[in-house]
């Protein structure tokens, strides 16, 4: 064809494509579309920082503005990945800082970020606007200070649940007085005090501030002042919600809250004194997201608060809410989409609150839009799960954790296969599933045959044999992430479904029965998979090949299989099929 659209037109058309999948599809049409698309892609998401190398990314996408990356596997949150495994952000940032001087946004999850990294970002990217560090670690408040000081146009600084070494609370003062662009500030993970006057001044000179999440050290008395300076807030995270009960503090707080007409999300609430909760009632009707997962509030006060929030869409709460509270929730919040119930005493032997599977059943019955659940409880029954599945076939995420691993159906003492089977059968759109309890291979058969849209599956202490794993790997077509711990899965299923692993982002197996020989074989068979054997007992070839490895992490990669930052407890296969370790 002699004529085609001029490139600028195509670029303009592509600029309306925001989803990465669409853009990837577009790149596959023809070479010229591939070229046009790669020059105009501005955002990129790398789900596994070792799946691709920075040079490859830079080569393909020369004009990026926003990078989002994930490092360690999900089970690193639960201390199953030893320290020092990897996921260092510095190599990526160093490469990108040079290649993308106009980089604006960086979002990292579960990566090790050092102060040098932060300093590099702040000094190289003149237009840097957004930094989100979720569950990251390795940096101190000095790094934050350099970000504050050098990023003139900083809009978002979000340190969600990261581990920050706090050398001083004065890093906030490094924000220059001329900095008025702040839109979002989340320091809830910091333990130490920050200077309140500096915080107040910062809040006062940021007219665009929409999200402010304070840390526990900010006392309730100071909260009113802060809120008053930012009545345009949309999301607020309080500090410690406790103070001596005084009427002037209370009325101050209530007035401040009532001035915030646009408040939609509340979080924080450490150390709550329930008498101060009514100060918030004026904003409750507009609240769509409520995070009370650190609040030890008795059920009655919780209920009073929740029944005020008719438009609630997301609720994170501790199990103090009990079944009675969940009944009230089901009755009053008909827009509820996401519910997370966390345990208040996960290591106690006996239940300390009366939260059972009944609560979840009533919520599933009463809330027609419920699609995402994370529920910690101590007992579960097949009947309840079947009822939940019947009530709510629109689940997208279903994560159930029974505190006692391998707990059976408490009524019939049978495995919970039937219950979870019903969940995957009825909920056809299920994308994420976490299972616990006594489970046999049968539940995996159900999953394999019904959960066709399942993308992420977490299994612990379940199954009887390799057949279970085989069902999952051969049946779940959309599976991207599979993480398994303490299950009796061995080599056979893994090797039989080796090709499937290339269609997934990653597979994590710890404390299973995968032998070292199988890992080697898998790595030999599949050159585009990186099979990392993570074993702290010493070199795997000092033990026989049929000996199980402690952990194995398999992920597809187009980068070199020998990452340079491997610690000495990680082994991968070298290119010439011999064992290699750093």
């Amino acid at each position: 064809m002699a004529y085609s659209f001029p490139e600028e037109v195509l670029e303009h058309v592509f600029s309306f494509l925001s989803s990465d999948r669409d853009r990837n599809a577009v790149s596959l049409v023809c070479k010229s579309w591939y070229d046009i698309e790669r020059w105009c892609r501005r955002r990129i998401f790398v789900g596994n920082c070792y799946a691709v190398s920075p040079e490859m990314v830079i080569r393909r996408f020369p004009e990026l503005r926003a990078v989002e990356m994930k490092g360690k596997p999900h089970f690193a949150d639960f201390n199953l990945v030893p320290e020092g495994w990897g996921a260092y952000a510095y190599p990526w940032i160093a490469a990108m800082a040079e290649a993308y001087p106009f980089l604006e946004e960086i979002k990292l999850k579960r990566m090790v970020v050092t102060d040098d990294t932060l300093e590099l970002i702040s000094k190289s990217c003149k237009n840097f606007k957004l930094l989100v560090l979720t569950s990251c670690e390795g940096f101190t408040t000095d790094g934050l200070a350099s970000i504050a000081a050098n990023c003139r146009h900083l809009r978002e600084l979000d340190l969600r649940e990261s581990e920050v070494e706090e050398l001083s609370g004065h890093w906030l003062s490094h924000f220059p007085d001329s900095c008025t662009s702040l839109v979002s500030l989340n320091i809830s993970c910091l333990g130490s005090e920050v200077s309140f006057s500096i915080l107040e001044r910062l809040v006062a000179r940021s007219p665009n501030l929409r999200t402010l999440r304070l840390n526990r050290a900010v006392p309730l008395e100071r909260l009113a002042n802060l809120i008053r300076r930012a009545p345009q807030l949309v999301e607020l995270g309080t500090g410690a919600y406790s103070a001596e009960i005084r009427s002037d503090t209370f009325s101050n707080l209530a007035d401040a809250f009532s001035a915030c007409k646009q408040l939609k999300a509340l979080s924080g609430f450490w150390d709550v004194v329930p008498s101060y909760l009514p100060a918030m009632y004026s904003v409750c009707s507009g609240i769509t997201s409520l995070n009370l997962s650190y609040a030890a509030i008795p059920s009655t006060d919780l209920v009073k608060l929740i029944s005020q929030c008719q438009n609630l869409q997301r609720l994170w709460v501790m199990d103090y809410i009990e079944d009675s509270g969940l009944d009230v929730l089901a009755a009053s919040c008909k827009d509820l989409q996401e519910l997370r119930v966390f345990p208040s005493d996960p290591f106690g032997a006996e239940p300390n609150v009366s939260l059972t599977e009944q609560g979840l059943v009533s919520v599933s019955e009463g809330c027609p839009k419920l699609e995402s659940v994370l529920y910690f409880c101590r007992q579960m029954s097949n009947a309840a799960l079947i009822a939940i599945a019947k009530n709510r076939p629109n689940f997208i995420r279903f994560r159930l954790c029974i505190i006692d691993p391998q707990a059976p159906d408490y009524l019939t003492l049978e495995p919970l296969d039937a219950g979870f089977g019903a969940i995957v059968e009825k909920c056809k759109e299920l994308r994420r599933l976490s299972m616990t309890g006594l489970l046999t291979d049968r539940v995996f058969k159900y999953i394999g045959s019904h959960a066709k849209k399942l993308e992420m599956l977490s299994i612990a202490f379940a199954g009887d044999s390799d057949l279970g794993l085989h069902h999952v790997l051969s049946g779940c077509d959309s599976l991207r992430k599979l993480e398994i711990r303490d299950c009796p899965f061995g080599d056979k299923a893994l090797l039989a479904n080796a090709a499937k692993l290339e269609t997934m982002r990653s597979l994590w197996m710890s404390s299973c029965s995968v032998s070292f020989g199988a890992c080697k074989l898998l790595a030999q068979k599949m050159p585009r998979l990186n099979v990392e054997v993570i074993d702290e007992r010493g070199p795997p070839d000092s033990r026989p090949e049929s000996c199980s490895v402690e952990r194995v992490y398999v992920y597809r990669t187009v980068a070199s299989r020998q990452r340079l930052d491997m610690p000495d407890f990680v082994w991968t296969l070298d290119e010439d099929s011999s064992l290699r370790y750093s």
Partner: protein
Amino acid sequence: MASASDCISQTGPGLKERNYFGFSDCSSVDRSTVSSAHLESKNNMNMKATELRLGLPGSQSPERDSDFSLLNSVKLDEKPLFPLAPSKDRICTLSQKTVASGNKRGFDDTVDGFSESKTTNFSEGNWMFNATGSDPGQAKLAGNVISIRPSGTQLAIKSEVPAKTLQESTNKIIGTNTANAPAAKAQVVGWPPIRSFRKNSLVTTSKTNDEVDGKPGPGALFVKVSMDGAPYLRKVDLRMYSAYKELSSALEKMFSCFTIGQCGPQGAPTRKMLSESKLRDLLHGSEYVLTYEDKDGDWMLVGDVPWEMFIASCKKLKIMKGSDAIGLGSSSYQVLLHFKAKKSLMYPCFVWDLAVYQCFYKESFRPDYGSDVPECFVLMSDISFICLLAFSCVFLECLLRLRLYLLFILNLDFLVEAQ
């Protein structure tokens, strides 16, 4: 565990168990030695480690060597479930519990020719001995355990049961590993799956709420441990330990790879881990001291305060070189490295050692004698040295004077040299 291990070593067939529990290698059967003996024997038994399975119920492969099933079942729990030094107490109680239950059920099974009953009793946790969670497994365990108990029918059952176990251990066994007890529950790494941030918040919340109850704080308390010269950090859960000794032995094990590396091969076989005593010597020889950062950001020597206070205030741990640890701690009696001092306490020349060390190195450290040696001993030893010196001076003086007196007063000629 001491009792069980003693029993093991007493019985004839128990010889095998004894070997791979590593008691023959260690001089003393104290907690840390036993736990590290596990580690050591693990690596000693390269062949036996073939059979090491980390799998759960029903995951026994046919080629498993039955004789080492007990070890395997114990070992396989150690690493994934107890990656840090397991307190022997817990293993002891649970093994006794299993013994009790095993006695009830497994014994009958084995005596009756080992019927393959599928009825699983969920209340009987077999958490510790994971691979044996199923009936045959339980029976097998019971079989081995029974052979330990002095109550007859040992040999026959022991040889019988494992054989049957192998044949019957197929993969259709339903796991029955319910957590045995609260103790076991708390020890599984990463369970329940709650992020550390939330766990730590829980701990502090419950501390403030439950201080009145006097209930011990729940949850894990992970702190980072770094070591001078080590390339990366480790994390330990302080709640796994109840005393300084346990913590220090766990850290010794964890960081042993670094100290060994530092000492270089020197002919030490890479496949074999050094024995416990060699390890201690290494650590002593390289002069490492354990320090921690408290809530105020100050670096203190570990061992100064009671354990509970230590847990409450410790934010980070660091294994420093002795030379870097000057000035830490507050006691004025700051002397030798902890281990050296501990040994020296037994020796009469202890105080001399101290004096020499202080003279030559011009440094002072606080000794970590452990919580069982009171401070007064340090005081006493110093005082005793001074007294000794003083006494010997006086004695010598007296002797000389006595000679003179005798010479003059008693006119004793024999005291004078021959003319």
